[in-house]
């Protein structure tokens, strides 16, 4: 089906598909990239968030630690200041002579021995060589603490001496020998007491501060563990932390935990090592690696961040397919929506094509039904098109054109019917006219079967319905036969009328005159009398004496008659009597005579015979007429006439006759009764005698 509707529909379908596919193809790659980037970024964001959480918590922890330490230090400084003042008071005893220097020193040492500030705080005196001089715990006295190493790696004595030399006091931190930093770390404030030649130190154990920090970190890990269990990157992606030794701090997702020990297929290196390297690079670039899960190779993407203060690595990793999944989902959704929109649009397009082609189908139906329409009915049959014609669209224009065409057709057909009726009327009148004209001609052949002296036959074939040719013959008395052949100029009804008049005039003239020339003059005068259109008739009038075979005749413009003697060659009778009848008034016609021998045949014809044209515009001609007449010897008059007409028809080969064809053939068989030919002199034209 190559209907317009289908074509329209196909066109719309093609446009929609082209637009949809173009939009989808062009946007697909971009959209996919954008979505993957977004997913990737969100994985990175999770990482940053975790990192931020870790660093915030760690900063809070450090801040708290600093606060505690600062507080302790202030306390130690206050205490060492008070204690130093007490030591100075003892030294002053010796200066003021209240006690000897030794006594004063012993008193000061005793004071320190008795000093118990409480908690882990201890006050003690250290000699210039680093030995404990006084301490609340007697077993400590005498110990060489100057040889201890502080946490910066200096000897305690050197640290104290240098700092006091520079700042006037010293802060030193060290770990007690035999104990870790958690239990044995001590923080001490030293001042110089030159009056007693010793250093005063007040120390406090700060293991609890370290323990506080550790607890804080533990809490952070616990919190992260809780939180990360909840965090899900896309579907099965996860975040986990591990330390410098690749030991997990928070556990990875259950499904991945057994796989992370694998080596990456591409690089051949342990996955965890790859994580650590990516974290150490710190460029934030995504790391691609492969996990082998059963038989399937799982493409993974990871972002790793390194939190240096704690030596932690935070890993956010997700299967690569899942990153692209939202993009694929969106594209699938887009395709679904497009398919839906396409379906709806195609439904609409189908309906639209129907509204467009429906009117065309109606018009087609209308046009098909047109030939069966009755155009003679006056009512506008374009009724079905009325609604269409009101439309301003092109189809409306077409409908209007159709309606216009139908109206025009109706008018034209009505006119055609009128003219056809008129024509039929004229045709029938012409047919009647022909009947009347035929009625004017003798119709009974052979006309004189009882008169053996003559054999006469005539025929008239009009070129149109009515013609201007005529022939006639009748006896004026028992021995004189009058025969006439005429040809009125032009053809049609006027000629036919003129022909009828001529025939009547000949008849009346033949009743009044004896000589054909006089008859002709009379006919001519009557015809010329009132002839505004200058109609004229070429006329031959002959008068045969049955007894003598003598023919008196007149030829007024008629083609030369043909004489075929019984003995001798056929020839034309060239004698001319005058112009055609009606051409000129008052003409005197020259009478002509001809003596027939028995068996002689006279043929009178109109120019329709000799001028009959074949399709090559060649005339039948005099020569062929002569030949045909010669060939027709042996036939009677009727036979010769028919032979001639047949020959003319052969010559014309279907070309329509341009003029009436009229022939009159007369054979005189001699005066004696019976058809026996009588030997005699050959016919000859008698010298013309001037008609009277």
């Amino acid at each position, binding site marked *: 089906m190559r209907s317009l509707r289908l074509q329209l529909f196909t066109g719309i379908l093609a446009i929609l598909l082209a637009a949809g596919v173009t939009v989808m193809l062009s946007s697909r790659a971009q959209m996919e990239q954008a979505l993957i980037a977004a997913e990737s970024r969100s994985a990175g964001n999770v990482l940053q968030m975790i990192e931020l959480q870790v660093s915030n918590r760690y900063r809070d922890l450090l801040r708290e630690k600093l606060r505690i330490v600062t507080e302790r230090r202030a306390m130690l400084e206050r205490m060492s200041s008070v204690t130093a003042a007490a030591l100075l008071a003892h030294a002053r005893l010796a200066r003021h002579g209240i006690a000897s220097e030794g006594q004063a020193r012993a008193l000061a040492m005793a004071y320190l021995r008795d000093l118990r500030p409480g908690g882990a705080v201890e006050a003690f005196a250290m000699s210039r060589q680093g030995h404990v001089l006084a301490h609340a715990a007697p077993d400590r006295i005498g110990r060489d603490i100057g040889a201890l190493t502080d946490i910066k790696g200096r000897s305690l004595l050197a640290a104290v001496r240098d700092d006091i030399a520079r700042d006037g006091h010293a802060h030193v931190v060290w770990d007690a020998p035999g104990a870790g930093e958690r239990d044995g770390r001590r923080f001490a404030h030293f001042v110089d007491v030159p009056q007693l030649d010793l250093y005063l130190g007040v120390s406090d154990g700060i293991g609890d501060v370290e323990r506080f920090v550790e607890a804080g970190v533990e809490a952070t890990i616990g919190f992260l563990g809780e939180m990360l269990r909840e965090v899900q990157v896309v579907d099965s992606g996860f975040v986990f932390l591990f330390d410098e030794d690749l030991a997990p701090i928070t556990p990875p997702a259950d499904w991945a935990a057994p796989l992370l020990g694998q080596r990456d297929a591409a690089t051949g290196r342990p996955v965890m090592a790859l994580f650590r390297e990516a974290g150490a690079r710190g460029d934030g670039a995504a790391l691609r690696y492969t996990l082998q899960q059963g038989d399937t190779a799982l493409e993974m993407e990871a972002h790793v961040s390194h939190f240096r203060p704690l030596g932690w690595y935070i890993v956010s990793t997700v299967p690569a397919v899942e990153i692209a999944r939202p993009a694929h989902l969106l594209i699938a959704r887009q395709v679904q929506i497009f398919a839906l929109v396409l379906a709806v649009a195609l439904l609409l397009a189908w309906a639209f094509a129907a509204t467009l082609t429906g009117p065309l189908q109606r018009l087609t139906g209308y046009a098909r039904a047109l030939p069966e329409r009755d155009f003679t009915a006056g009512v506008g049959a374009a009724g079905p098109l009325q609604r269409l014609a009101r439309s301003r669209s092109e189809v409306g224009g077409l409908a209007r054109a159709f309606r216009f065409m139908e109206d025009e057709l109706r008018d034209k057909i009505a006119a055609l019917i009128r003219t056809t009726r008129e024509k039929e009327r004229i045709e029938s009148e012409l047919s009647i006219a022909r009947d009347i004209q035929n009625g004017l001609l003798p119709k009974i052949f052979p006309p004189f079967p009882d008169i053996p002296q003559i054999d006469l036959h005539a025929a008239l074939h009009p070129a149109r319905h009515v013609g201007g040719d005529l022939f006639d013959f009748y006896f004026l008395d028992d021995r004189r036969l009058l025969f006439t052949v005429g040809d009125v100029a032009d053809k049609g009804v006027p000629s036919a009328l003129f022909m009828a008049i001529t025939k009547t005039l000949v008849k009346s003239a033949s009743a009044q005159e004896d000589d054909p020339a006089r008859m002709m003059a009379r006919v001519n005068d009557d015809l010329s009398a009132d002839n505004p259109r200058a109609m004229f008739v070429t006329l031959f009038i002959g008068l045969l004496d049955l007894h003598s075979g003598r023919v008196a005749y007149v030829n007024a413009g008629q083609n030369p008659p043909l004489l075929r003697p019984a003995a001798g060659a056929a020839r034309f009778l060239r004698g001319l009597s005058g112009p055609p009848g009606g051409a000129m008034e008052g003409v005197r016609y020259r009478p002509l005579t001809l003596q027939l021998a028995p068996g002689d045949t006279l043929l009178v014809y109109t*120019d329709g015979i000799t001028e009959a044209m074949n399709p090559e515009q060649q005339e039948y001609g005099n020569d062929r007429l002569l030949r045909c007449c010669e060939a027709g010897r042996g036939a009677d008059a009727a036979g010769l006439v028919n032979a001639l007409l047949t020959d003319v028809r052969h010559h014309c080969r279907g070309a329509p006759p341009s003029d009436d064809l009229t022939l009159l053939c007369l054979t005189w068989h001699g005066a004696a009764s019976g058809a026996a030919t009588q030997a005699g002199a050959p016919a000859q034209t008698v010298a013309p005698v001037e008609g009277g």
Partner: protein
Amino acid sequence: MPDNLSFTRDQEGATAVLDVQGRIDSATAGRFEQELDGVLAARPEGLVIDLAGLSYMSSAGLRVLLVTARRCQAEGCAMVLCGLGATIREVFDISGFSAIFDIAETRAEATARLNG
């Protein structure tokens, strides 16, 4: 149907000359008559009809010539035919019209006859 009849009008002094080419039969005689009417409407003193270019003339054409001749006679205009070929001449001779019309051999002779 493209009818093969055409005319060329000319004027020599007070004499109108009509050159006729083609065929005159029942179908074209009407146009021949109209053309002659047009020529005579200018009231020429003489009329020469040159039939040299004519290949055929039927009785319908003869009738037109006859009408024209009568009209010329009534209006005092002399009419001369010229340039009759053998075929046309035969038509005139057979029909006896040679005796009715003033016929010259050539156009020059015709105009000379009118002006002389």
